[in-house]
């Protein structure tokens, strides 16, 4: 039996990037906001101080910052005719937990998507014809355009102090930036981070091959920065402990270093941490959310009533909460009906490790940050003619030097024994002269009819709720794309003078144990009409208009970039719609 708490204007489920943005924006609009976070409170000096932030064993190997599968997990299978099993140790992606969410442990690679990404189906059908797309591919347009999102990308980049080189300011192409990017209204707030030797060499070779390399946009500070909320970040020290780690010296843009100090000063904001939301409550009509129910660490169940519910959890938990709360029609891949769980995607990542002459090349891999490197965008989205290649999609690729951490940075040339004295000798010889990009080929994953999320028929969590079940595999389109991109990537390392190159193509079946990225997307997608999407273009539930669902769960398919820039821009876009439209006239913002 749950106890009822005093009603709030807004309840936010999950205080990661989007939860923090929504909380700030809605509290700033004068609403009484409470956030409910499954994990603990986290702060720089007390939770990941420089004294132990750089503990590779604790954070990288033992997953200290992440959700513990003992608390909750989900089940996985490749094919619809298989039986899914629960994931008991994270591998392919790292579900976040705690205040700041994935924003605490990201690399801070801060991209915008291409204008054509938002109209993917229309664009590709126009250029190549409908028959060019695989029959079971279910990509669709987002319902918004790049131009709609531009001011909100801008807000996020200025919130974060993103370090980068603009390639297109108001339509004018700028030398040294990404010439393929959509027009931005102004340059990045900070100059790019300094590039290590390997990235400089990569850029030189790429230029000689006719590409236009540019510095990766980084949420790690190239210089001290004060954001529009008055919150400050310190300069990055290039320590190389970003992804999987919290930043010990306030240099990485996270909710903690950009929003929370300003949010916590607001008297109309409060937070309950260590509290897991178990369902969104609806009134008798099923068309209105009345709040949420959550359970604290004592096992007490509480009801938090609210006029507005913002679901800001990690992708798969957003989908699971919708399914468990009976909001929207569950997706049925056989009948091809329903939307909740549909168009679930991840990423198609691969890498190339190259070995150079140790007498001539010293790369110092430990000079690193989550997002320093030189990238090219020639093979992303539809920046190149896919006609001759027989696939769609693409990705950026780059020599991004994220770390030289000792446990995982042991590149050895093919043919080296896997252990023993020879292996040790090879590690020693190659540590300084091998390049293993932290992000190599960052490929898209498009959506398919048989890749989705639903509720598992067998496995349940500690509350007796069905776990979410993911059914996911690579399709030929993505494997072809990856082969093509990986070969192109390797050519650049060859041109740099590598004496040996190891290509690690992404191969099927989709493997839950091998890390790619934490970019699970889709399942509660945005779109143009209720029949093809769970949310309208403002991330508002078509079925329950006082519910908004933020995060990458709204992506109809996953383009070839890291998603956080777009996830956050969408949150600002949604907050803006709530402030300027919904609050004046609560109800559906789009007529269905």
């Amino acid at each position: 039996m749950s106890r009822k708490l005093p009603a709030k204007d807004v309840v936010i489920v999950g205080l990661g990037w989007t939860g923090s943005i929504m909380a700030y924006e809605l509290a700033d609009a004068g609403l009484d906001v409470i956030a409910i976070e499954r994990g603990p409170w986290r702060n720089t000096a007390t939770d990941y101080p420089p004294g132990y932030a750089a503990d590779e064993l604790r954070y990288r190997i033992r997953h200290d910052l992440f959700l513990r599968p003992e608390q909750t997990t989900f089940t996985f299978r490749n094919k619809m005719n298989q039986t899914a099993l629960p994931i008991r140790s994270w591998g392919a992606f790292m579900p976040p937990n705690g205040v700041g969410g994935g924003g605490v442990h990201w690399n801070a690679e801060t991209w915008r998507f291409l204008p054509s990404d938002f109209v993917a189906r229309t664009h590709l059908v126009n250029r190549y014809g409908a028959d060019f797309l695989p029959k079971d591919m279910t990509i669709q347009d987002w319902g918004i355009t790049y131009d709609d999102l531009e001011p909100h990308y801008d807000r996020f980049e200025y919130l974060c102090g993103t370090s980068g080189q603009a390639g297109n300011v108001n339509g004018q192409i700028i030398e040294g930036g990404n010439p393929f990017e959509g027009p931005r209204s102004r340059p990045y707030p900070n100059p790019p981070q300094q590039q290590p030797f390997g990235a400089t060499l990569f850029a030189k070779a790429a230029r000689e091959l006719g590409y236009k390399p540019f510095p990766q946009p980084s949420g790690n500070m190239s210089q001290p920065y004060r954001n529009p909320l008055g919150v400050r970040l310190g300069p990055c020290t290039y320590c190389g402990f970003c992804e999987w780690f919290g930043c010990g010296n306030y240099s990485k843009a996270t909710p903690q270093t950009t929003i929370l100090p300003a949010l916590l000063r607001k008297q109309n904001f409060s937070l309950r941490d260590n509290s897991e939301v178990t369902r969104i409550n609806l009134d008798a009509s099923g068309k209105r959310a009345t709040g949420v129910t959550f359970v604290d660490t004592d096992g007490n169940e509480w009801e938090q009533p609210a006029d507005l519910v913002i679901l800001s959890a990690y992708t798969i938990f957003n989908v699971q909460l919708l399914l468990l709360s009976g909001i929207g029609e569950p997706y049925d891949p056989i009948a091809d009906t329903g939307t909740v769980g549909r168009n679930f995607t991840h990423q198609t990542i691969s890498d190339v490790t190259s070995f150079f002459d140790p007498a001539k090349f010293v790369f110092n891999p430990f000079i690193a940050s989550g997002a320093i490197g030189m990238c090219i965008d020639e093979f992303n989205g539809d920046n190149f003619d896919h006609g001759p290649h027989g696939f769609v999609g693409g990705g950026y690729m780059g020599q991004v030097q994220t770390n030289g951490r000792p446990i995982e940075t042991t590149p050895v040339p093919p043919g080296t024994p896997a252990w023993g004295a020879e292996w040790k000798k090879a590690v020693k010889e190659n540590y300084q002269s091998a390049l293993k990009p932290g992000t190599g080929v960052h490929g898209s994953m498009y959506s398919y009819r048989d890749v989705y999320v639903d509720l598992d028929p067998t496995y349940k969590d500690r509350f007796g709720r069905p776990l979410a079940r993911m059914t996911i595999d690579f399709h030929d389109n993505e494997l072809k794309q990856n082969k093509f991109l990986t070969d192109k990537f390797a050519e650049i390392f060859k041109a740099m003078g590598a004496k040996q190159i190891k290509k690690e193509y992404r191969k099927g079946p989709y493997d839950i144990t091998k890390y790619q990225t934490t970019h699970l997307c889709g399942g509660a997608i945005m779109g143009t009409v209720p029949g093809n999407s769970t949310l309208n273009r403002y991330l508002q539930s078509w079925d329950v208009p006082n519910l908004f669902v933020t995060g990458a769960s709204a992506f109809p398919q996953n383009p070839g970039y890291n998603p956080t820039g777009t996830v956050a821009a969408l949150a600002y876009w949604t907050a803006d719609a709530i402030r300027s439209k919904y609050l004046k006239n609560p109800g559906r913002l789009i007529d269905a």
Partner: protein
Amino acid sequence: MRRVVAIAIAAATLCVCAGPSRGASSQDFAAVERGRYLTTAADCGSCHTTPGSAHPFAGGRPIETPFGVLAAPNITPDRETGIGAWTDDEFDAAVRRGRSRDGARLYPAMPFPYYTRMSRQDVADIRAYLDTVEPVHNAVTVNRLPFPFDLRSSMIAWDAMYFTPGEFRPDASKSKEWNRGAYLVQGPGHCGACHTPKTLLGSDESSKALHGSVLQGWTAPEITGKQGSLRDWSVEDIAAYLKTGHNKNAAAAGLMGEVVGRSTSHLTDGDVEDIAIYLKDLSGSAPGKTASPDKDVMNAGGAIYQDLCSACHRGDGKGVPQMFPNLTEVATVSAAKPDTVLRVIIQGAASVSTEKEPTGPAMPAFGWQLDDAQIAAVATYVRSHFGKQDSAVSAADVGRARSALAARVN
């Protein structure tokens, strides 16, 4: 004593003019507003509110003194347990003369030796404001001192020896701004309560006003601006520190973080600047290098510094403006007493978050990671290499600081 009597007579006379009990009422908007501002400048709420309590001014916060612990009384207008039944005269006597309602003498934890520099009108306005706050029924047992300090009669001699009552008298040779700053520092701001060294009996060493002291495990550094530790701080630097808790040199944490958060950040830009103008004009003590610390200790300290401290404070110790203190300019680093340096290394410290500087960066604790000799080495290195203080910190000093901090509740 004669001056006390004179003031008492003057007060009595004024009282007759002003009416039997009240000088200003809560109806008097201007008085309430002025009183609210002075209450902030005097930081009454800091002691008279239990931290974290939803009831400002309801008292109960333990106040440490060198002689034991007192609890701050309830100063809400509750008639039974607060000051609701007090007359303005009684209130004025408490604030400016250190006399309780029953005539007993207050302990100088209540900074009446400073508040006496305020005018009767100032205090009447504070009273007018306090009359408007929520009355809270909260009986506080104030006196928790051990014998013989629990005897308030012991204060008779103290008052006679150390208490110089009397309003602030402007110095005609100085500017209006200087005089306003002097009034705020010497009067409501009661800066000397922490920053002036104390005699054995807890009174100010008045010849060394604002030369620095130690209390509650923190160094209250010298804050004189001519040749003291604020020598290289500009008026703007000092004003920014008071207003925002941060400047290009330092960050307010601990007790000073509270002072900034509750009091000085709410003062007008003009007032914090006037305080800065006054402090910059105070001579203070000349810095003096004493002895050079041991080379091995400096080498070890330097290595620890590069390893654990330089990510934020940078290799050159200059930190990041408004975020991480510049160790060459932080007053507590160069202070004779290393209490703050040791405390923040051992326990860490969060700097204050203010409206203008909301970040509030925090220094992590290193006490779990470094042993006493290592902390001594890095503290010695920081004080000598970056600061202006060459007296070494010993491992035994660190051990004592560690035990003292472990015993602290705040």
